Structure formats: C-alpha cells, structure tokens
C-alpha cells in the first residue's frame, strides 16, 4: 500500500480546514461519588510523644458544646484519585492556554508568560508572611514599589495602591476615595451622585451604589459615543464624580473625553477612569492628560497575570497628589535605600483588604512589563489595535454580522458586534452561535447586561494571537453563520462536541429545586438523608 498524503486532507486550496475538534468529555462523577470509606489522600505530621504527654487530651479542654460530634462528611479518596479527578476537570475547561481566546471581549485574554508563573511560585515569593519584619521582605517590597512607579509613568498619576483584589474592588476603592474627598471638604451630604455610562463595566454603577451614591446612567448617542449633552443635563451641585471606561466596551474611543472631564470638574466633581480596556492605549494616551483624578488598572487583564478561573487578581488604583492622602493604608515608600510600609495616614479610607494586595499577581505584572519596556508596551497596544481592526474587517464580511456605531471608524482594542441581521433572517441567536463555535474549540462572550446592542458578541483579540489564528477564528464564525442559514437546527442545539449537552436551567431559579452544594442536591432532589 502506498503512503497516503496525510496532510493533503487538512487543506483546501491552500487554506486550512476547520479542525475536527472534540472537547475532553469525561462524564466525571461528583467527587463525593468517588469516595470509599477509609481512603486517605494525605497523612498529617504526627504530634510528638513528648508533646502528647505534656498536653494530654487537648480536646477535653473544650466544652462539650464546642467539640464537633461527627467528623465532616468529606469524601475519602486516595491521592492519585484526587489528582486524576481534578486533572480530568481541568481538561474539561477551555483556558486561554488552549484556545484562540479572542472571544472573551473586555477580559483581555492575552498570553500569560510561563516564566512569570514560575517566578511567582518560587519559595522566595510563596513562603513569605506579610507581617514579617520589613528587613526580611525588601525583595517583594521592591518589586511592588517598582511596579507602582511603572504604573505612575503609564498613567501619569501620582500615587498608587495595589491593595484592591480586582477591578471591581478598585472601582469601589475609587468611589470610597471620592466619598472621603467630599467629606473632607464638608460636601459629603450635598454631593451624593455619581454619573456613569451604560457601556462602562457594570461595576462602575454597582460599586458606586455600594459606596452609598446615587447612580445616574447615561445612554449613548446615536453614534454609540457617551452623550455629552446628556452629561451636561446630569451634572449639578450634587455631582460627586464621573466613573467611566474609555474606550468603552464597544471599542470606541470617546474623542470628547476631555470635555466630559471638564464638565464634571466645573460642577465640582472628580473623574475616575476605569482602565479595564487599557490594552489598546498603553503608551498612546494617559489618564493624566485627559484630566482624570483617579484611575485603575486590571493587572489580570492588561498586565498578563492569568485569570485563574476568576481570580486571584489585582485592581491597581492610581490617584493625583491631592487624593493620595485618602489611599488605602499602608502606602509603600522608598527612602533611597530601604522600602517601608507607611501606616501613618490619618486621612486614609482604611483597609480594603487584609494586607497589601496579591503580591504574586503584582510580581507577574512587573516581570511582564520588564520583559517589554516602553517600546514593547507600545508594540502591545499597536498590535492589539491592529489585530482588532484586522478582525473587524474580516468579521463584517460575514453575512449577518454588523459592527454597530462609529461606522467607518477605527476601533481601539475590542469591538461589540451584532448578529441582529442574521438573527432576523434565521431566528438563530447570538448565544447559540457562540455555543456552536465551542464545537470548533473556541468560545465567545456576548455582552454585559443590558444588551443595548442586540444579539451582541464582543471580541478582543489582544496582541497575543497570530494572523493565522485570527483567520481561523473568523473561519469558524463564518462557518457557523453559514450553518445558521442552511442548517439552523444544528446551531440551535449546539454544542455537540463539548463536555456536556444542553443544560436545563429551570431548577436554578426555583428555590424548591436549586442546589448549590451536593448535600443540598441530595436532600432536595434525590431526597436522601446524609
């Protein structure tokens, strides 16, 4: 038999065919179902006999009411079983390491360099207690300090705090600083309104409200830009501040951003810049020049720290000199030879978290910037934007897709597309297209609610994917769009090559059926006692 040309079938007219993907599918039981009485996953260091002799039965020192009667009903597995179970589950998870993750728009799913992960796992990072004498943690303090200086340069702001545990926590911190600022000027009662826009991240509204403010939301004008006239109608002597993302989630840069800031300043408010979408403007434009008083960055987005299924993360907060006194405590300082944590900050809003921020995330962010430098960061922004506009061009060629707003204009680092035309003609919805795309090894995200853009799909290529990969992504969506027209049922019943089949969501909203733990499930659905 002659040797078959294996590779020939993988291409058609020089272009690669879509991969015949199938996600790992283990049909893995819930871990409790793997339990076998008596098994041990790890053994605990034994207490020395001398200690035992000295202390006796230590549990007897507890009053009856405080002694646990029955051991917790945790599963009993051997070590390799635990490992095997979790490795299988990880295989059933489509991390950025595996897929062309341009689909999770606004999340900035860029490459998280492995060398930085390794650095973050060194004992010199992991085996350090936050309350150790400062002399013994000069290394990590130096990393954090240097990174703060880097952020100062990137944003133009005067001082930073790395304490907030992610973007939303940072937004809340900014709202808290706004509150403190106005309180210090005796205007806290008067200034109780924060203005934001509907295309900013939902946390801008939610965190402002949590901090006690009234939230006024502006809707965009016809071109999709935040409406300046609406802003003018919204400001008053009650305005505490503006919290806005720019570019917004649509990928459009608000060219009037300076006027926005001015209008709010004239009304006596301050402006906070949500820089979650900073990836496309690094080295190009800064919060400072636009007049902002506060800003924040997501280190797990723009600065490459991995997303970890949803954290840990850092939301770095930056402020002007005037607001620095309100920053969370302690503040990191350098006296020329040593790094210090300064707790003497009487006007600080206090603690946002227990210590100083998630240090390993800061370490990765620092290493990432150090590997690129100023030119590298500029390249990051330029290629991210080039990738995005390239993707935009290809995407709008797909029948049924449009990119609402800012017609004919360039986008910055992401675009919110709309499948409205396709949905009208075929009845297939955006979510369904996204799920069918899963059958080819990619996914995408629609939009935050509310869906202002109908049938939305938000893509953010970042700088991490090659031209070929971008083209593969488009080829997949092109194929799925075609299926929507020719074989809609196939798309509507997707995914077919994934881990599981269509989920019945009804129980999740029914208090009599919902179960957030296995024990609740056994009790309510299986009606078993445990």
């Amino acid at each position, binding site marked *: 038999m002659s040797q078959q040309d294996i590779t020939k079938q993988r291409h058609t007219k020089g272009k690669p065919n879509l991969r015949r993907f199938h996600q790992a599918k283990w049909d893995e039981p819930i871990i409790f179902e793997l339990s076998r009485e008596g098994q041990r996953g790890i053994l605990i260091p034994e207490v020395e006999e001398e200690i035992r002799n000295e202390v006796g039965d230590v549990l007897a020192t507890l009053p009856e009411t405080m002694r646990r009667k029955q051991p917790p009903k945790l599963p009993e597995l051997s070590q390799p079983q635990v490992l095997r179970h979790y490795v299988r589950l990880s295989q059933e998870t489509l991390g950025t390491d595996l897929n062309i993750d341009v689909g999770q728009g606004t999340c900035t799913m860029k490459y998280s360099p492995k060398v930085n992960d390794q650095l973050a796992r060194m004992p010199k990072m992991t085996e350090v207690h936050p309350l150790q004498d400062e002399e013994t943690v000069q290394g990590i303090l130096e990393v954090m300090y240097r990174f703060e200086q880097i952020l100062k340069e990137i944003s133009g702001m005067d001082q930073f705090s790395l304490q907030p545990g992610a973007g939303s926590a940072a937004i809340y911190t900014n709202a808290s600083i706004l509150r403190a600022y106005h309180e210090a000027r005796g205007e806290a009662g008067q200034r109780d309104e924060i203005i934001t826009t509907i295309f900013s991240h939902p946390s801008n509204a939610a965190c402002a409200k949590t901090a006690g403010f009234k*939230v006024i939301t502006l*809707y965009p004008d016809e071109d999709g830009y935040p*409406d300046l*006239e609406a802003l003018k*109608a*919204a400001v008053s002597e009650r305005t505490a501040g503006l919290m806005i993302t720019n570019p917004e989630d649509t990928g459009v840069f608000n060219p009037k951003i300076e006027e926005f800031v001015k209008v709010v300043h004239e009304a006596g408010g301050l402006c906070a810049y949500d820089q979650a979408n900073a990836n496309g403007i690094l080295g190009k434009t800064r919060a400072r020049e636009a007049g902002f008083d506060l800003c924040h960055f997501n280190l797990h987005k723009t600065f490459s720290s991995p997303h970890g299924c949803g954290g840990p993360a850092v939301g770095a907060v930056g402020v002007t000199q005037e607001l620095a006194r309100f920053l969370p405590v302690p503040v990191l300082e350098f006296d020329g030879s040593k790094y210090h944590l300064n707790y003497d900050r009487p006007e600080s809003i206090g603690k946002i978290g227990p210590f100083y921020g998630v240090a390993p995330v800061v370490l990765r962010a620092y290493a990432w910037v150090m590997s690129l430098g100023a030119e590298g960061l500029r390249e990051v922004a330029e290629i991210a934007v080039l990738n995005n506009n390239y993707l935009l061009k290809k995407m709008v060629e797909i029948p049924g897709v449009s990119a609402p707003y800012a017609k004919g204009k360039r986008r910055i680092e992401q675009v919110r597309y709309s499948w409205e035309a396709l949905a009208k003609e075929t009845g297939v919805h955006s979510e*369904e297209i996204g799920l069918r795309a899963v059958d080819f090894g990619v996914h995408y995200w*629609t939009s935050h609610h509310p*869906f202002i853009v109908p049938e939305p799909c938000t893509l953010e290529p970042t700088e991490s994917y090659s031209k070929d990969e971008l083209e593969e992504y488009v080829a997949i969506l092109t194929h799925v769009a075609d299926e929507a027209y020719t074989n809609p049922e196939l798309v509507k019943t997707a995914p077919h090559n994934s881990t599981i089949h269509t*989920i019945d969501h009804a129980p999740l909203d029914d208090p009599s059926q919902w179960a957030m733990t296995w024990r609740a499930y056994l009790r309510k659905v299986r009606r078993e006692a445990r």
Partner: protein
Amino acid sequence: MKVVAKRLGLIVNPVAGIGGRVGLKGSDGAEIQKRALELGAVPQSLNRAIQALERIKSMKGAFEVITYPGEMGEDAARECGFEPMVIGSIKQGETTPEDTRNAAQEMVRLKVNLLLFAGGDGTARDIYNAVGEGIPVLGIPAGVKIHSAVFATSPRSAGDLAELYLQERVSSLREAEVMDIDEEAFRQGIVSAKLYGYLKIPFRRRLVQSLKIASRPGEKASLEAIACEVVDRMGDDCLYIIGPGSTTRAITSKLGLNKTLIGVDVVFKGKLLATDVNESQLLNLLEGRDAKIIVTPIGGQGYIFGRGNQEISPEVIKRVGKDNIIVVSTTEKINSLGGRPLWVDTGDRAVDRMLSGYMRVVTGYNEQVVCRVSC
C-alpha cells in the same frame, strides 16, 4: 426539558392590517374592509400567524392548539402541520370583532395556558374586552397601527416567546398597555390615543435574553424600588399629579392607595385628593398650589405625554413647570426603546419644545438614567 400537556389558544383576525398596504389607515368597519379588498389588498395576518407558528412547530407534540375555524386560525394551524381543536363557527369572509371576543371567551373557559393572536390594536382591544387580565396573551403584530405594548417585536419573536413560555423557560408575566386609537381621527391624520386597559403578557426581562438563563419575576422588585425612591422624597407641601401606568401605580400602591388603572389621579399629603380627573379639574386643583407631575412612558413607543394621559394638558404642564416633572420607568422599558428617545406630543408645539432635550428618569432606588426627550 419539561414536556407537559399545554394548551395554546390561537386567534387570527383575518382583516387586520388589510388597509395598510393599499394606503388605507386601519381596517375597522366593513366598509373599509370591502374597499381594501377591491383595491387588491391581501390579508397579512395569515402569513404573520404562520411565521409565528413555524417557530413552535418543533415542540408540536407537547401542546394542543385550540382555534377558531378557517381564516380565524384553523388555516394557519394546519398550514404548519398542527391538528388543532376547532371550536365555534364563523361566516367565512365576514368575520367581526364579535367573533374575536367569542373565541377569546371560549378559550378562557377551556383554560388555555396562552392565547396567541394575530392582529392589531383593534384586535387587542377586542381580546381585552373578552379576557381582561384573566389569562396570558401575546400579540403577533399584523395590523397597521401597533401602539399597544402587548405585541412581540415580530411574528418570529412572538413564536419564540410563546415557545419559551410553553416550555416554562419563561414564566413571568407583566402588564402591557392596550391602546385605543381613534380610527376616524387617525384617517384624518390626527393621532388620538387612549389607554384602554392592560393585558398580561409573558415577559422576558431582557431585550434580548440569554436563552440559557431563565428569568425570575424581577419586575416586581424594580417597581418596588422605584416606588420607594419616589415615596421617600414625597413631601406634604405639594400636589402630586400621577399619570396612568403600572409603574406609577406601584407608587400609589406603596402609599396604600387605590389608583385608577387608566386615569390621572391626584395625591396630596399621602391621600387621594381626586381620581380620574380631566384637564379642567386639574387646573382648578392647581389654583394657588405647588405641584409635581409623575408620569411613565406609555405604550410601545415611549411617550411620556400625549398617549393615554392627555388630561395632563399643555396648560397643566406649564403651570407645574418642567422642573417639577418626575419621570419613572423600569430599565427594561428604557432599554426597549433601543436607543430611541422618549416622546412628547402634548398638542402644543411650544410646550413640546420646552419638554424636549434631556430628562432624568427614576429607574430604581438611588438610580436614574438620563434620556433624550423628543417631539
């Protein structure tokens, strides 16, 4: 997926929208209908009904279709492969609003889970007269004038929503306005709309909702929040002129008062001072007093003045002053505008222009949006 035997009622108004294509406004009255057919009009509602039913075809076996004979529903149902239970009797080619009402009443008796109808505002009114808020209803748009909010945005989405409701993946209902347009006036170019009543329609909380996340009744919470916000700020020093709408009604309910469904009421010091007032009564009450007006967008188009609350006349508005107007609305309603502004049509261009620009709208507790207002 739950598969439970459900009953879907189907009523098609064969003459709805018949006038539109040939340039006649509306199609009430046998005269207009005859004229339209002479002009070569082709009934639209059958096609629209079929488009909607196509969407639920795949779950055919899971529910029973109950409908009226021939052109009032049976034809559409059979065209899509259903085998409906046919009730009642009609005179083919000479159907009347009476038929629509009878059909609806019968379906209520037969306990349909959802009544799907193809028609326009007129048909909606007829159904309302027969059914009130007794059973869930959903309109397949097929008429020319669609001012009522009881319709889906298209025949396809009517079918989609009906499917979700029958599958119990959408289970909440909300009240939607039935509008009554004066046909005669309409033909003369005058839009005169009154709020006629409310029907209960299946409600998806989002404009476009994730099909994978079923919704919980959230509107109640929104209305409660809005009511709290407004009531918290109400003072004893002025009158409150409260327009019709379910959102404004939530405010009076919070005060423990019984608001008229479609009229304008006046509240003072937390009590109902006058109900279902007209313009002159309002002007009398306003003599020498401060007042605030509380209104909510009525109908599918987002009118805050001019559709269903004409009693709040230009004169009343001028006396109260633009700064004393409180607009309330759920965010769903604002989002359903799809970027379009709120509208005013008081009848007085000057007042319309005064109201135009931007207004704050209360959307929850400590929450507002800024909306464009146009005339």
